[in-house]
């Protein structure tokens, strides 16, 4: 009933003779799938078709590549199958994935990257360790509030004052890193309290609580982007900023919201990192900027804004940790992992370009 109603309004202006369209096609319109041909639909289910549309092919391709990689590694590398190794991959994905989920909102809103994610997360580890004596929940909430405030300030600067997003976030990163190292004197802060629920706890074997946190963040952000007015405005703003202004969207508040939510995610990833290490240290967030950006780009979120899903970035993070893990199993050090990571980013950007070009043809 609900779907049908949407289908009718969607088809209204384009098709004056409503009853001329079969009901099945209306359903497809309602699901957001454009023109519907007749015969092939029965052979290939529509959801599968969407996955291989030009818009989704990059993200789907990455998920398939991750799957192939896992299958090959499971068959070829005995060490890959060890429970400890699987757990290492999952833990490596959690913090990066959470930060990347936040970054996706920035990229979707058309503001490229946020280069203060690593710094926010590093300072959040300090706050987490310092407030841990009040309990785990309070510590996590403190990191969320910290991240939210830092993100909110950047959102105001970028959204309302129209500052350049890259330079603003570089400046904010150095400000909060400076404040953080003044606060900690460059030393490690050991947390007093129990972090085992978040740090090492697991609901089922292979499903640590950190993974639940990541899934929660991805689901909530995905819901916000796709099913709330604000989220849709963020996406539209990224697709075409000029049209968004003319259409009267709340562009300032959208950007502020996107940055605040990205800050919250960065703070949360700091909490995850701090609970894994059970300490607070400015070095903990060191590579997070690169990793989150790489995850977003590899995952298939369009750098031009507007296109992509939050889960794409999470899969990008998973892919990165699998690649990193395999390199590690081949005894290749951190440096080679960085080089490979950078090359994968450049490669995926190139592939995205050619996918977009072939779809235009």
């Amino acid at each position, binding site marked *: 009933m609900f779907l049908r109603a949407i289908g009718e309004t969607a088809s209204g202006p384009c098709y004056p003779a409503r009853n001329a369209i079969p009901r099945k096609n209306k359903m497809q319109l309602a699901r957001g799938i454009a023109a519907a041909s007749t015969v092939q639909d029965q052979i290939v289910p529509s959801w599968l078709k969407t996955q291989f549309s030009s818009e989704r092919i990059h993200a789907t391709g990455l998920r398939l590549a991750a799957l192939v990689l896992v299958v090959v590694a499971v068959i070829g590398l005995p060490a890959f199958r060890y429970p400890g190794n699987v757990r290492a991959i999952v833990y490596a994905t959690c913090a990066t994935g959470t930060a990347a989920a936040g970054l996706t909102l920035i990229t979707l809103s058309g503001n490229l990257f946020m280069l203060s994610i690593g710094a926010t997360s590093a300072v959040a580890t300090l706050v987490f360790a310092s407030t841990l004596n009040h309990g785990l929940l309070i510590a996590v909430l403190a990191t969320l509030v910290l991240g939210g405030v830092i993100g909110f300030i950047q959102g105001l600067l970028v959204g309302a004052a129209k500052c350049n997003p890259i*330079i603003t976030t570089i*400046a904010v990163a*150095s400000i909060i890193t*400076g*404040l953080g190292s003044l606060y900690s004197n460059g030393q490690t802060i050991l947390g007093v309290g129990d972090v085992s629920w978040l740090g090492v706890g697991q609901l089922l074997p292979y499903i640590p609580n950190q993974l639940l946190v990541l899934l929660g963040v991805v689901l909530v952000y995905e819901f916000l982007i796709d099913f709330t007015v604000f989220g849709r405005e963020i996406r539209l703003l990224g697709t075409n900023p000029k049209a968004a202004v003319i259409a009267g969207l709340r562009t300032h508040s959208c950007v502020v919201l996107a940055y605040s939510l990205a800050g919250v995610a960065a703070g949360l990833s700091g909490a995850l990192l701090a609970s894994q290490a059970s300490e607070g240290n400015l070095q903990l967030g060191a590579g997070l900027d690169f990793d989150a950006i790489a995850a977003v780009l590899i995952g298939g979120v369009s750098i031009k804004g507007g296109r992509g899903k939050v889960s794409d970035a999470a899969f990008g993070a998973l892919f990165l940790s699998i690649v990193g893990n395999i390199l590690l199993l081949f005894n290749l050090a951190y440096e080679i992992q*960085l080089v490979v990571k*950078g090359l994968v980013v450049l490669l995926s950007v190139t592939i995205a370009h050619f996918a977009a070009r072939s779809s235009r043809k």
Partner: protein
Amino acid sequence: MRINRIHFQFFLAAAIVMLFSFSAPHFLTAGNLFALMQAFALLGLLTLALGLTMIAGEFDLSVGSMVSLAGLCAVKLGQENPFFGVAVAAGLGIVIGLANGILFRALRISSLVVTVGTMIVLTGLSFWIAGGRVVSYENLDVADWLEKSILFALSPRSLITLLVFVLAWLFLGQTKIGRDIYATGSHRLAAEAAGARVTFTLILVFALSGCISAVAGSLLALSLATASATLGDNLMLQAASAAILGGVALSGGIGSALGMALGAFTLSALNNGLSIMGANSPTILLSNGLLLLGVVLFDSMTEQRGKRIFRLKQGHS
């Protein structure tokens, strides 16, 4: 005479020098001015490298990581002959700059995306070459020569930087390709329509940026007689601050060699003054960040105001 941005620059640089010469007793000594010019020798080149891409409307994020890689190359390969080391490093810089330029132009995407990738690759390569250690340079004569004091505040290294600035001033102001850079940065489509070689200009600018930052990195490493993978950390931030402080517009098309030199000098003087007054490195990082934020905010305010006035004028005509 209209007061323009360059006058403001001179005023700001003079104000900072005055402020520190009153508040920090050792600021105006020959030794400290020498140290200030050595800091300027590094930051000036990097500001120029980044500023050239900014004038063309792009942004080279890989400048800092290029410094580390070039420093390591120059020290590793230049043990026998320092000129060979610097030449290889500069060649590497040109190759990487060309790769950056060709890739982002061919893909028609923001140069930020491509240079983020290059930055990660270069950082990885530097860690790989360094192998987690500090590489030292045996031939200390080279360092001595580069750090030799000429006219009490200058050295061969800072003279090289000043020479490069003069060349950049001639290049930007007096050559056709220099004007093409400004045209490309202010309105790419209009520049293309007017016959500017936009693709060539952009690729050239990135090659120059890679080359200049590689030279800066190799000279720094040779004069320190050491190189490590973290040589270029935080330099990106300072170079961006200095370029914006020097009047280079983030939106492209605006900026000058003199402005960039003054911006780099002002920032070096500020950091030098703060550190001889006893500020520790987090405080300096914090103040650099605040300064950058302030300048960006100021620029965006004036730009918004300019747009508003433009709109008003259009409305009346």
